[in-house]
């Protein structure tokens, strides 16, 4: 499994691991019964503290997304349809909310925004290539956006 860990953005690494494993499970990139990489391997590969990985895995077990089989390792648990749906929605909501906010701020009409969204959807669904670039500093107040009282 491929991870993309950002160590300077302020999001604790264990949270990033949880989110990314969750996403893979929800999107079906990891299937029920599939084994998670061992704590040691993953820590070495991502070059992070092993305790960070154990902590992330601990949360995933607690949330019932994976289960521990003694002496073997961690495995993805089959997920109920409703739960998968719920998790999918909440992941999508995050991105949509950002788009909606921008739409209102720029005073673009809802109609125009919906059309654009449909176009993007179409472009990706029909497997046309495209590039999305995150512009530095475009995510408001993220990193070093300092403000003094």
């Amino acid at each position, binding site marked *: 499994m491929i991870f993309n860990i950002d*160590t*300077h*953005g*302020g*999001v*604790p*690494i*264990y*949270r990033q691991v949880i989110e990314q494993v969750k996403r893979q499970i929800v999107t079906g990139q990891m299937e029920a019964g599939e084994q998670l990489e061992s704590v*040691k391997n993953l*820590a*070495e590969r991502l*070059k*992070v*503290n*092993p*305790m*960070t990985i154990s*902590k992330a895995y601990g949360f995933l077990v607690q949330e019932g997304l994976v289960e521990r089989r003694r002496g073997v390792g961690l495995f993805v648990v089959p997920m109920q349809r409703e739960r998968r749906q719920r998790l999918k929605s909440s992941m999508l909501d995050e991105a949509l909310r*950002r788009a909606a*906010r921008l739409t209102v*701020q720029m005073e673009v009409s809802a109609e125009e925004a919906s059309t654009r969204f449909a176009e993007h959807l179409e472009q990706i669904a029909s497997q046309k290539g495209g590039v999305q670039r995150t512009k530095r500093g475009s*995510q*408001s*107040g*993220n*990193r*070093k*956006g*300092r*403000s*003094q*009282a």
Partner: protein
Amino acid sequence: MNAEPVIQIEKLVKQFNYSTVIDGLSLEIGSGRIVGLVGANGAGKSTLLRHMVGLYLPDKGRCRTLGRDAGKLSPAELSRIGYVHQEGALIEWMTVKQLIRFVAAYYPTWNEELEKEFVKRFELSLETGVGALSPGQRQKLAILLAIGFEPELLILDEPAAALDPLARYKFLELLLQIIQDPRRTIIISSHILSDVEKVIDHALILDAGKLLRDCPFDALQEEFERLRITSLNGRLPEELPLSGVIEYERSESQAVITMERLPAEELERIAAEHRFDVEVNPISFEDIYRIVVERQNR
């Protein structure tokens, strides 16, 4: 994990020329932790670390390391501790290779494989005289001598300060390899926060000889957050209905606020009640550090 803490400090006071450098500090570090000790220059980081290896003795209070008064550590106990500091004295007239062999001879646990890998990765020139090394090369050699015997307690005082960015990166990579051994305790001090944030699991923030934080690093990262609030009905109230605000900047309809983290439900409630659109962002370790120190000194 060992039940007994590796480091146990109680009400430690240290003064130099009537100025207090460590000010009644207490601290426990459990086995297997990777601890980051951060603070400005002059905060007392090196002084604190020196107490741990018995180089300084407390004026008041006490400091126990591996279960013994640090000032009375026996040679056998000292040989379980690796210590890298900034002005390390090395034997100048030897070549790098000679010094490595000389030090290795004292330790039955010396790891030659690690040594070879280190020499290769950091391009240590074995035939150069120690006295002729650049500060960066010297620091690399000092690090090798401190980790080569696989100490169970590794104390690194600003280990990367003399290294260039690429060597720093390689060093952190190596450190991450070393910490994969869960029995090893590592204490690493730095004023370069980005150096330590990837490796540590516990954070100590030291300022003017006092600990301002002693907590899991994850908890520290989640202590504060930055909100961008946009009023959905045009105007934000004069007084924002939030407590724990540390810094803010606002216009009539928007505000960016750094604050103590609120429970998610409470934030939802406030947003709904006041018609706020709220975007929550994490803040960087640099900002967290600055906030913690500035609040203390306000």
